[in-house]
C-alpha cells in the first residue's frame, strides 16, 4: 500500500512537472524565437531606424511604408542584381533568403 501510494504520488508529480515544463518551454521558445527575429531585423536599424521607423527627412530612403511582400520582393531584387542601388545590393547578398524573409516579416507594414 505504502509503496503503491508513493508510486502514485511520484507519477502524479512527474506529470505535473512535465506539464509545467512543456507549457513553459513552448512559451520560452516563442519568446526566444521572437527575440531572434527582432535581433536579425535590428541589423537594418542603423540606416533605416529602430524597428524600421526611419528618421523623417533624414536623408535615407524610408522603408516602413512597404508591406512585407513588397519589402521581400525589393530585398530579393537587390540580392539577385535585378534592382540597382548603392549599398543595398551589396548588403542583400550577405543574407540568406530565409533571413531576408524574416526581416521583411518583421519590418513590413502590418
Amino acid at each position, binding site marked *: 500500500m505504502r509503496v503503491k501510494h508513493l508510486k502514485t504520488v511520484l507519477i502524479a508529480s512527474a506529470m505535473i512537472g512535465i506539464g509545467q515544463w512543456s507549457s513553459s518551454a513552448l512559451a520560452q521558445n516563442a*519568446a*526566444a524565437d521572437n*527575440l531572434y527575429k527582432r*535581433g536579425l531585423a535590428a541589423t537594418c536599424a542603423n540606416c533605416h*531606424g529602430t524597428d524600421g521607423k526611419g528618421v523623417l527627412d533624414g*536623408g535615407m530612403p524610408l522603408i516602413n511604408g512597404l508591406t512585407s511582400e513588397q519589402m521581400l520582393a525589393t530585398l530579393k531584387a537587390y540580392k539577385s542584381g535585378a534592382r540597382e542601388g548603392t549599398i543595398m545590393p551589396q548588403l542583400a*547578398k*550577405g543574407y540568406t533568403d530565409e533571413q531576408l524573409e524574416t526581416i521583411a516579416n518583421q519590418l513590413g507594414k502590418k
Partner: protein
Amino acid sequence: MNRRHFIGQSAAALGLVTGFSTQAHANLPKAEILVIGGGYGGATVAKYLRLFSNNTAKVTLIEPNASFVSCPMSNLVVGGSRKMSEITTSYDNLSKRHGIKMIQDSVVSMDADKKTVKLASGKTLRYDKAVVSPGVSLMMNTVEGLAQANKAGVTLQAWKAGAETVALHKQIAAMRDGGTFILSIPEAPYRCPPGPYERACQVANYLKQNKPKSKVLILDANQDVTSKGALFKKVWAEQYGGIIEYLPKHNVTGVDAKTKTVKLEVQDDVKGDVLNILPAMSAGEIAVKTGLANSNGRWVNVNFLNFESTAQKDIHVLGDAIQIAPAMPKSGHMANQHAKVAAAAIVAELSGWEVNPAPVLTNTCYSFVNDKEVVHVASVHQYSAAEKTFKTVPGSGGLSPAPSTLEGVYAWGWAHNIWADSLA
C-alpha cells in the same frame, strides 16, 4: 513606459517565475546590468537591452560626457564645413523614453571577482552583468615626445570627437598659407580604418579654398592605404593634386614639440606646421586595467555569440576595444551591431533561453572626400559555428564605384538614423 505596459510585463515575468527553471527566469528583471561607456556600443546596448527585454531589464549607463559627440562626421568639423552642434546628440532620451538610469561619471576600477565597479565620485556599484564599451586608448608612449608635445599644446589627436575636434580645426585655420599639415597613421588595427584618409581630404579641401599654397603630408606606417585605397588615391590625384602627398611605410617614432619635427623609423626627419600624430591604439583604459585585454595586452578577446570577455565571466565587451574577427572594422556602425547581438544574448541568457547560435553583423562606412561627395565600404558578417568567429559572406559587400553627392545625402541619412537608433 506606461503603467499598464509595466504591470503587464511584471505579471508576465512573475508568470514565468512560477514555471520551469525558476532561477533563470527570475534573473532578467532582478539582474543589475551596468553599461560602461556611452558611445556607439554602450548607448546602443543600453537601449536594446530595454527593447529586447520589453522594458524589464534594469539598465544603468555610466558615461563621463554630458552629451554624445559622434566620431563619424567629425572630420567635417576638423575641415570646417560642419559645426559641433550638427554631430552632438543628447543622452536624455535614453532615460526619458527608455527608462535607463544615467550616471554621468567615469569608472576608475572594476573588481571582476566581487562584481563591482568604482566610480570617480567614490561610489561603488554592484553588477550581475557588466557591458564594457570603452572605445580606444591612445598609446602615447609609442611615439617619443608625444605626451610632452600634447601637454605643451603643440600636438593633439582629435581621434575622440569633442573639444579636440574644434581645437584641431583652429590650428589649421591659424596655419600660415604655405604651411604643412602632417597626419601620421599607426599600423592597423586602429579606430576607424578610413578615418585618417578622410581627414586628409577634409583638411585638403579647406586648404584648397583658404590657403592654397599649403600641403597635407600623410605619413602612413602601413604598407598602403588601409581602406578604400583606390578611391582615395584617385580623389587625391584629381581633386587635391599638389596638396596631398601620401607616403606609405613611414612609421613615426618621435616628435619634437619645439622644432615641430617628426622622427621616422627609417626615413629622414620631416618638419611641419600642424602635427596631427595618431599613435598606436589599444582597448580603452578600463578594459586594460581590469585585465580584459588578453590579446597582446591591447585588445579584448570575446565570445562572438554574446560578446562576453574570454578573460572574465559576466563582463561583455563591445566595439573598438575587442580583438576583431577577420575583415571586421573598428567602426561606430560595427559597435552598434555588436551591441544588438550582445543585448539579445544577455536577455536570452538571463531568461534561461538558448542564445542565438547564428548572429549577423553588417558594416557600412561612408567617407566624405570633400564637403559633399562620399564613397562607402559595406560588408556583411555571418557567424561561423565551425570557426567560432564572424566571416564576411563571399560575393557580398563592396565599395562605391566613384564618389557621389547622392551618397553624400545617404551618409547624412546614415548619421541621423544611427544616432536615433543608438540614442533616441
